[in-house]
């Protein structure tokens, strides 16, 4: 005979009470296990089992919540709420899923990398260059972390006059990708866009850096209207966010080195520019001086030639004049006769060394 105190429910009420009990007693749980029977229905719903050596639980989630590639055999950690469905089937409603362990992380990374690569998201043609000297940059990072402090220190050491807007976000954990996506969206919706979007995080374990392999985050970086630079972890850490960014920095400090020039280097460059101007001016002045000297030399040469010509003409003239000199004719034995050349006339005969006065005896034609 049934005890009167035994609870009695309708089926629907019973399911509701069980679900309420589950919610009170467990709420949200994280479960680690291996994925089996993974499938996507109608392009919207994801079903799979999570299992270990002796147990298995059904899992359900919507496709848009699936941020990383998952396949059978992959070890994952799911964050989920346990529930009984209206049909009495026990199931985990998944809120998030992430690969667990080195092998699964790597597998998931490679699957997503291949998918995005096929879409051309890593293509070099998509890469935009950063401005040489930006005036306004946006930073997405955990502003309380060492990576951000390193970035700001290097930035201040290298450059000044820069407007830096920093968005504080989680850079690891389940909520990190979504926070970073919101920050990217925030900066991309500004009336005046920053010239560079810097996304940085210091070093950490593979699991810590997993947020930067989140598919929606990678797509948000790819879609950013603002050119992006991503510096995550250390030199050896490569994330999909790095690969899709316009510029990859090895570390947050390296991001600062890439984003702004070094004021010391620029000061040296200024000196070089002013020296170049001086060299050019000196070159032109030297050129003018050389041209002037050459012209002067040409003028002198022409003058010399002219003088030689005149001298030569003078000699010739002198020779001609000499030939016409009456004295020279007298020296050759000729004489100049002046006076009345008629019979009885008196004439003067001039020779080289004497003058003879004589009377004309006769004049006859030859």
């Amino acid at each position, binding site marked *: 005979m049934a005890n009167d105190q035994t609870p009695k429910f309708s089926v629907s009420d019973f399911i509701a009470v069980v679900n309420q009990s589950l919610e009170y007693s467990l709420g949200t749980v994280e479960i680690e296990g291996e994925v089996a029977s993974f499938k996507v229905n109608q392009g919207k719903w994801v079903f799979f089992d999570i299992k270990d050596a002796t147990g298995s639980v059904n899992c359900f989630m919507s496709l848009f919540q699936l941020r990383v590639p998952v396949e059978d055999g992959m070890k994952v950690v799911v964050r989920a709420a346990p529930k009984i469905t209206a049909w009495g089937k026990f199931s985990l409603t998944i809120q998030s899923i992430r690969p667990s362990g080195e092998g699964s992380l790597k597998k998931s990374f490679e699957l997503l990398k291949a998918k995005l690569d096929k879409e051309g998201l890593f293509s070099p043609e998509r890469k935009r260059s950063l401005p040489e000297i930006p005036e306004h940059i946006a930073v997405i990072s955990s502003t309380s972390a060492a990576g951000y402090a390193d970035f700001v220190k290097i930035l201040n050491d290298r450059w000044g006059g820069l407007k830096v807007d920093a968005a504080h976000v989680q850079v690891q954990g389940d909520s990190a990708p979504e926070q970073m996506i919101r920050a990217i969206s925030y900066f991309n919706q500004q009336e005046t866009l920053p010239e560079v979007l810097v996304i940085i995080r210091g070093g950490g374990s593979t699991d810590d850096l997993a947020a930067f392999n989140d598919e929606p985050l990678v797509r948000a970086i790819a879609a950013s209207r603002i050119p992006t630079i991503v510096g995550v972890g250390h030199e050896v850490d490569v994330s999909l966010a790095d690969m899709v960014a316009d510029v990859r920095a090895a570390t947050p400090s390296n991001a600062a080195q890439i984003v702004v020039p070094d004021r010391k280097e620029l000061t040296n460059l200024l000196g070089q520019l002013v020296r*170049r101007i001086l060299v050019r001016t000196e070159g032109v002045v030297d050129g003018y001086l050389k041209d002037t000297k050459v012209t002067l030399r040409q003028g002198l040469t022409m003058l010399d030639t002219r003088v030689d010509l005149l001298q030569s003409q003078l000699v010739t003239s002198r020779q001609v004049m000499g030939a016409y000199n009456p004295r020279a004719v007298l020296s050759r034995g000729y004489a100049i006769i002046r006076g009345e050349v008629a019979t009885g006339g008196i004439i003067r005969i001039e020779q080289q060394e004497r003058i003879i006065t004589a009377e004309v005896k006769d004049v006859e034609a030859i």
Partner: protein
Amino acid sequence: MLKQSEQKTVSEKMNELSELVAWFEGDEFELEQALETYGKAEKLAAEIEHDLTNLKNEVTVLKEKFDA
């Protein structure tokens, strides 16, 4: 209206200096104008150096929350 020299950014001043250097290295160079232009370039270089030494970055952590 033209920007006063002190209102110009370092980037704008650098561009202006590059243009002056290009004038010196180009075909339009005239010795008569060189002295004046060199004076401008030298002044600009000094201003940029001063800016580089004295300008501070303005870092603002946004109040906006991105966690929800």
